[in-house]
């Protein structure tokens, strides 16, 4: 998402181009509002049903509902927490602490009314749009602990995580914190969403340990059509994620949508050919995973790069995430069940760094952050953003997991795992054909 400073500049630029068109800050623009209402719907669509189907198809049929339920419960719980206190921690002024965390003035969204405006859209729309990001980020982590985490522990863990990890990182990048000030470019969530979720996922996979039987037992995805369907929904919904992060229906939103499409397509093709070369056949699970990798990688770059940059970022994402989700995972031996780290963590890192390259005007981009002059500086800034997110997220996630684990345990017991979480945790079965 553009930082607010950028937003003003862009809008002024936009005004210059559109004489006679009342597109000023703090005046509601119905076109921008229409697009942001739509974008909000699109990003929610990414999680339910998109991501939840993408994930649900990959687990064994005895766990299909547990994954769907985790994503759905996260959606509901994060919405409530966001309303009560996470929004204000993320996006209001934190006073002295502002580089690190926001303040408390909008607890329970108090102070935000029908007529509150943020930029050119109602503040309520901004709040809900951002809420959908705070929903999907923890939902992405599900991919790492699927098929073995206790549902109750997951709720507690993620409540702490959204407060202690997401809110500050979000504030750093978009809410007026240090990361934005340092010129780290993160248009739609490369660090805030994907690196954050990917690293948290990796820590979860390591702390929870492998699923019983992994990797010797066969655990083929139980219903790949669900996964392909979910991937298609993610792709479509991601237009709201990236082009919506412009917070307006303008040229930057248009370019963000274009580069999203191009990078995603390129990554899908790249993954497909990698698999074809390495394993002799291209697969449906492969190509859709490649597309998701492309979506992830273009996310931080989407408002800053042009078509050429998006082809390059897409290709890089497809190839590197392919290696991450196949060779790296297998050689390291952790059980990141559905590749939350392999796709989102790695894709987020690749995309965040490459944003520093392809934002360059000469490469068709919009140019570097204000105050940054060379590609080297921008890449440094990007790396700093990534590194800070990795370190803070990894440490904090680890501590939270350990505490929750000590108090209530993290994993279901062996028998429950064998029986499947659907029956053992939820008393229901996915299919009764």
């Amino acid at each position, binding site marked *: 998402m553009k930082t607010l400073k950028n937003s003003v500049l862009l809008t002024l630029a936009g005004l210059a181009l559109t004489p006679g068109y009342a597109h000023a800050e703090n005046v509601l623009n119905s076109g921008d509002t229409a697009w942001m209402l739509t974008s909000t719907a699109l990003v929610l669509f990414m999680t339910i049903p998109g991501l939840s189907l993408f994930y649900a198809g990959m687990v064994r049929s005895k766990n299909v509902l547990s994954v769907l339920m985790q994503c759905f419960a996260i959606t509901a719980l994060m919405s409530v927490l966001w309303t009560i206190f996470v929004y204000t921690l993320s996006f209001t002024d934190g006073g002295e602490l502002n580089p690190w965390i926001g303040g408390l003035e909008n607890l329970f969204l108090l102070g935000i009314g029908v007529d509150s405006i943020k930029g050119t859209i109602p503040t309520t729309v901004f709040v809900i749009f951002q809420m959908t990001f705070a929903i999907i980020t923890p939902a992405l982590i599900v991919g790492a602990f699927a098929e073995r985490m206790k549902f109750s522990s997951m709720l507690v863990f993620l409540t702490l995580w959204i407060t202690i990890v997401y809110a500050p990182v979000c504030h750093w990048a978009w809410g007026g914190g240090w990361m934005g000030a340092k010129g780290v470019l993160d248009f739609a969530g490369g660090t805030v969403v994907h690196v954050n979720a990917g690293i948290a996922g990796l820590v979860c996979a390591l702390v929870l340990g492998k699923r019983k039987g992994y990797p010797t037992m*066969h*655990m083929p995805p139980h219903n790949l059509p669900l996964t392909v369907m979910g991937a298609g929904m993610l792709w479509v919904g991601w237009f709201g994620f990236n082009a919506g992060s412009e917070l307006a229906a303008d040229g930057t939103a248009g370019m963000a949508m274009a580069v999203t499409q191009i990078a995603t397509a390129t990554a899908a093709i790249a993954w497909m050919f990698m698999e074809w070369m390495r394993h002799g056949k291209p697969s449906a699970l492969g190509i859709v995973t490649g597309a998701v990798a492309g979506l992830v990688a273009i996310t931080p770059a989407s408002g800053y790069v042009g078509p050429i940059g998006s082809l390059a970022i897409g290709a890089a994402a497809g190839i590197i995430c392919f290696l991450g*989700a196949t060779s790296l995972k297998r050689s390291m031996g952790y059980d990141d069940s559905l590749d939350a780290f392999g796709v989102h963590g790695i894709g987020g890192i690749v995309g965040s760094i490459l944003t520093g390259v392809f934002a360059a005007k000469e490469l068709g981009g919009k140019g570097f952050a204000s105050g940054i002059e060379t590609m080297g500086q921008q890449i440094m800034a990007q790396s700093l953003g990534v590194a800070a997110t990795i370190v803070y997220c990894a440490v904090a996630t680890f501590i939270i997991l350990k505490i929750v684990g000590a108090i209530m345990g993290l994993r279901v017991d062996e028998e429950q795992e064998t029986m499947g979480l659907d029956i053992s945790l939820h008393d229901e079965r996915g299919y009764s054909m």
Partner: protein
Amino acid sequence: MKWVIAIIKPFKQDDVREALMAVGVTGMTVSEVRGFGRQKGHTELYRGAEYQVDFLPKIKVEVAVNDAVLDQVIEAIRTSGATGKIGDGKLFVLNIEHAVRLRTGESGPGVL
């Protein structure tokens, strides 16, 4: 009365059913099973995780027949179920000691 169990290739199901009907069989029961044998399976690959799948989809045909027609039935299944390629399947004959038709309660050969 004999209980004939035949494991066949799925796409042969209709041929076998017709061959059985041709020799006067009026009832049978089939189910989906997975078979392991000489016919080699296939590989599946999901994000780099390779599975060797040795079990292949097969159809199990079970048919109770009177002793008099047993040979005809065996021959019918054999000719209709074979393609000449590995994996065509097998046929086993077991003895039935007693048979009952639920609807009428009658028992013995008339049941079929």
